[in-house]
């Protein structure tokens, strides 16, 4: 079974140690969320796994060194800045960059159409990427990531620029993708209610180390969250949903 294993991951920028010997394992077919305060090292962790930041330690997928399996990973950044005049369709098409030849086959065009339809962004196909709103850009980059058929999907605050409808749509598509393809999704999110709703497991990162990893009910505990976030937290159950709301600063 596919497994993403982080072994003693350390990252530092000069004297500032961001990740301090982080160990964690993530299994296939699930959404795993990384939570923690600003500066805890969440985005750095995702970028390190994606190979965009070099640290020490090992990132293992299928028991092979991650650095040699970059094509198995897709990374969706917090914000996709680009002044490119490429169209949204072309941006999604680039997800297939490794298999594209001079002539783009009809099958690949069809594939791009399908993924854009699934994410509800078919209408953006002919628009220039740089002219899109932040949320639309995020959806296009998500489509680009999905079309590359990654085994590991890294999503850095994927819902930060999305409206409520698209937040749920994106996370539903991610969940379905992971189940169907036995892939691993690792997301960073600040909305703890969404984290509780969509995550199969949660990694609570604090000062560059794993403070706790487990199922949502084991990690999203008011006392633990209050200690980490320095905020009084209310947790409420509504049908099957767990609602987590910040109440006041401690």
């Amino acid at each position, binding site marked *: 079974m596919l497994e993403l294993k982080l072994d003693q991951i350390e990252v530092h920028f000069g004297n500032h140690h961001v990740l301090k010997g982080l160990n964690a394992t993530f299994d296939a077919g699930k959404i795993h969320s990384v939570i923690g305060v600003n500066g805890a090292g969440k985005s750095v962790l995702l970028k390190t796994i994606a190979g*965009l930041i070099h640290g020490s330690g090992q990132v293992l997928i299928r028991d092979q060194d991650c650095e040699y399996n970059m094509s198995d990973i897709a990374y969706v950044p917090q914000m996709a800045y680009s002044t*490119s005049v490429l169209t949204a369709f072309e941006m999604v098409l680039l997800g297939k*960059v490794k298999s594209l030849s001079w002539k783009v086959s009809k099958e690949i065009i*069809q594939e791009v159409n399908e993924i*854009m339809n699934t994410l509800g962004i078919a209408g953006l196909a002919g628009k220039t990427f740089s002219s899109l709103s932040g949320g639309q850009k995020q959806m296009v*980059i998500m489509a680009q990531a999905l079309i590359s058929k990654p085994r590991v999907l890294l999503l850095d605050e994927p819902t930060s620029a999305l409206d409520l409808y698209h937040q749920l749509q994106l996370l539903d598509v991610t969940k379905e993708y992971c189940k169907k393809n036995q892939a691993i999704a690792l997301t960073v999110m600040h909305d703890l209610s969404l984290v509780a709703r969509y995550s199969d497991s949660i990694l609570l990162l604090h000062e560059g180390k794993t403070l706790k990893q487990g199922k949502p009910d084991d990690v999203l505990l008011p006392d633990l969250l209050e200690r980490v976030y320095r905020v009084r937290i209310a947790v409420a159950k509504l049908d099957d949903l767990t609602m987590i709301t910040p109440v006041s600063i401690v």
Partner: protein
Amino acid sequence: MDNQENSYIRLSRKRKIFLLFFLVVLVIMAFWDIVTGSSALTAIGTLRILFDGPTGETKYHYIVWAVRMPMTLTCICVGASLAMAGEQMQTLLQNPLASPYTLGISSAAGFGACLGIITGFPFIPIAWLNNSVSALIFALMSSTVIFSVSRRRNADPKGMVLLGIVINFLFSALTSLMQYLATQEQLSEIMHWMFGSLGKSSWNGVIVCSITFVAIFLLSSRLSWKLTALSAGEERARSLGIDTSRLRRLTFLYSSILTAVAVSYVGSIGFIGLVAPHLARSYVGEDQRYLAPLSAMFGIIVLLAASVVSKILKPGELLPVGIITNLVGVSFLIYLILKKRV
């Protein structure tokens, strides 16, 4: 779904039509350039001479085949080389103002030519070849320095541009020194070289420059999709699994060779590498499969137009074409600034 499919296929078809249209414009411009000159040759007469081939014995055959054809073909291979080099520089440095001049390769070639004119370096007995080889040596030398340093810095675009500025200043200073030391006659030759002139056109030059362009074009076309991804941004390209440092170094090598060969052949012809890619981008976007050939075509068209103007402005004399391209380039740059496109 059909609509989307059609929109991309339609876009691709539109881009192909643009390529074809500008190819026709290019052929017309090339013919116009051959017809234009101080000899009273008509378009029909020129056509007849072209169909006769280079073996005809009249003086007009000589004018068309030995004088005008090499000049027109020089416009074609030099225009294409400088434009493609500029387009690659803009993509790899992610800077819309980049051109073959940004990284100082052209200044290095200029210094090489001055050194050749004044000292005779590298002492090749064939006069027409000597200064060009000297220019080529220094252009490649400066490229090697940038290439080696950028290797250490993972081909960071900002570092490359800064180093290019340093190299530009260094060789500009050395060129000024050479001009200070030159005799009046040498100074005149240096000025002519610095302006960039088609007067140095020759069949040998055309052959070397064309082979270089075709080889680099074919090699670059293998990188088309990766370069397209790079145009979407550094992080995006890297997260798509592209080794951007390697891609930058390779593309830099290609554009350096194109620039070095073109500049050492005809001298410093400015702005083609800046203007042509911008024009091409406005028609076909960032898809390198279309952008690279259309940039080359615009480079040729602009240089052919400048060549025609340089012949018409002062009949009987050949104005340095670099002056015309600089004037066109400055106007275009002002247009871009006013349109907030840079």
